[in-house]
């Protein structure tokens, strides 16, 4: 890969992306159009996140990639290897050791700090897209702060199902101005969107970047009588016993037996190393 520039993209492209990132940070939650490049991985597979990571990475950074909370899912492995090859950066699986974390569909369980950047891969950046397919219309709605349609949708959910029937990519309002799609994270993760780290969102195919600066208020949309509720499977982790982590359900056999394990593989591993043992776990600490 020696023919390619540091972190693959040429410096002009990185400058263009950095300008979009800075604009995004200046106007929290606003979707900044950017001239997304064709990357050597397919659209829809994290090209937005990869371009944002390429623009923020420096040779001194330590990089972590998770998909569904795990460092070892195939696409996370693939993206991590891409930057090992093109940027020669140090990589880690430990959340607290990473300076840049690229993620798909999760926010790590461990609290992030001010010297970290969390980069999200975003498939459809427009929270209003499934209510109004036209970009020309949705941009207008954002500029006029016209979010009535979204509230009507949530209200109709309640009248039809008795609850807001959105369980991931749950819409939020950022800094009391823009309604934003937090990417398809489970709504369990929404309260974590107010954090110390910089959060950058990259949508490659849709050519949008947006951002949430540190300590920015992020409110999940709801109603007074139907308040937002962060939910997860009502179990502890079967490997580490954690009660506070988001869980994946795994089918064990054809008799309907299941187990629940932390989706954040680093969180689960560090708990087990600290001696926590769940229902089906085994002692791993020395």
């Amino acid at each position, binding site marked *: 890969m020696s023919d*390619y520039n540091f972190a693959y993209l*040429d410096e002009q492209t990185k400058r263009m992306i950095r300008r979009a990132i800075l604009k995004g940070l200046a106007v929290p939650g606003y979707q900044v*159009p*950017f*001239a997304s*490049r*064709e*990357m*050597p991985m*397919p*659209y*829809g*597979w994290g*090209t937005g996140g990869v371009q944002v990571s390429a623009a923020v990475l420096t040779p001194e950074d330590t990089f972590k990639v998770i*998909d*569904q*909370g*795990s460092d*070892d*899912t*195939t*696409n*996370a*492995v*693939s993206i991590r290897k891409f930057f090992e090859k093109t940027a020669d950066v140090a990589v880690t699986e430990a959340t607290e050791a990473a300076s840049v974390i690229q993620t*798909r*569909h*999760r926010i790590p369980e461990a609290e992030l700090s001010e010297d970290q950047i969390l980069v999200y891969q975003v*498939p459809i950046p427009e929270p209003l897209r499934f209510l109004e397919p036209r*970009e*020309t219309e949705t941009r207008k709605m954002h500029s006029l702060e016209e979010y009535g349609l979204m509230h009507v949708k949530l209200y109709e959910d309640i009248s039809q*199902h008795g*609850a807001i*029937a959105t*369980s*991931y*990519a749950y819409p939020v309002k950022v800094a009391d101005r823009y309604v934003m799609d937090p990417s*398809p*994270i*489970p*709504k*369990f993760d929404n309260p974590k969107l107010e954090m110390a780290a910089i959060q950058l969102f990259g949508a490659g*195919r849709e*050519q949008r970047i947006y951002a949430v600066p540190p300590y920015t208020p992020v409110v999940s949309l709801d109603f007074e009588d139907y308040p937002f509720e962060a*939910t997860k*499977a009502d179990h502890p982790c*079967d*490997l580490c016993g954690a009660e506070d982590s*988001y*869980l*994946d*359900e795994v089918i*064990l056999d054809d008799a309907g037996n299941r*187990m629940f*394990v932390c*989706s954040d*593989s680093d969180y*689960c591993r560090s708990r087990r190393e600290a001696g926590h043992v769940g229902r*089906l776990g*085994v002692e791993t600490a020395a």
Partner: protein
Amino acid sequence: MYVAVKGGERAIENAHAWLAEERRGDTSVAELSVAQIREQLALAVNRVMAEGSLYDPDLAALAIKQARGDLIEAIFLIRAYRTTLPRFGATRPVETGEMVCDRRISATFKDAPGGQVLGPTFDYTHRLLDFKLAAEGEVPEAPKADPRSESTPHITEFLQGEDIIQREPESEAVPGDLTRQPMSFPAGRDVRLQSLTRGDEGFILGMAYSTQRGYARNHAFVGELRIGTVAVEMEIPELGFAIEIGEVELTECETVNQFKGSKTEPPQFTRGYGLVFGQTERKAIAMALVDRALRWRELGEDFLGAAAQDEEFVLSHSDNIQATGFLEHIKLPHYVDFQSELELVRKLRREAGVDDEAREAAE
């Protein structure tokens, strides 16, 4: 005991190794060379160059070989390579009126200066499998004629002389480039045409076909279809004049469309335009039809709600690299969002009492 899924890295490496083996196929069969693909699968090469937006027959042939003949995958390889190339500048607009034509036909005039030249076309072949090809037969040499020495004028120029066809507005503006600027709507005809020429052949074909079947019908005559090579010239600042840096093969289609006039335009013929790399006439004709359908606003026509008239719909969905990437990404793990949906559906069912009823019914 469940063991957290590990080993993604090795699985990927093994999958790549298997893929390489499958690509090569049976090793007792001779390997395809890039030159063979370039020469004998030229229309596939042309499609990859057109939709990959990079005129390089050797690289396109290599991409087809690497992609095992999957043309969209080959286009993807070319696109990903193309974005890494430095840009030295822009050429002058190519002069298709000076094209050295291999093929040039008009469906609107029986004959015209420059004549009707069929060229190497499938058009009047009977589609019968030629089993001789299976035996690798040699091809007899085709008869040759001397090429025209003078240039071949565009058919639409004759209509323009009579002022019976819509005039295209002249412009010195630098055309937009959707690979450098994010797409925004309304896009402008320059970006529309760029989007169409690199759009998926199947998609553009389907859109064009829909206009023929009555979804925003604008009956199109092929005023002219020409295929041939044109010189590519570039101004070199140090020299102060333009020099020819190479030539490219192009297919150009100009349609002449019925038009009864509108509130703003008198009755006249209108135009659609298609220009595509290589010998790609299906694509060029389809492009011209879709271009014409998208011009409704400029010509003061009504929006009939047809997909082919809808700029945002057409342009947002014509790119097969975007489309295939997003379509295929649903293969990636979605455990987390699926889990949250599972919890939600279980909760809603519990609250609706469905599970209780089902259990009672079972008992």
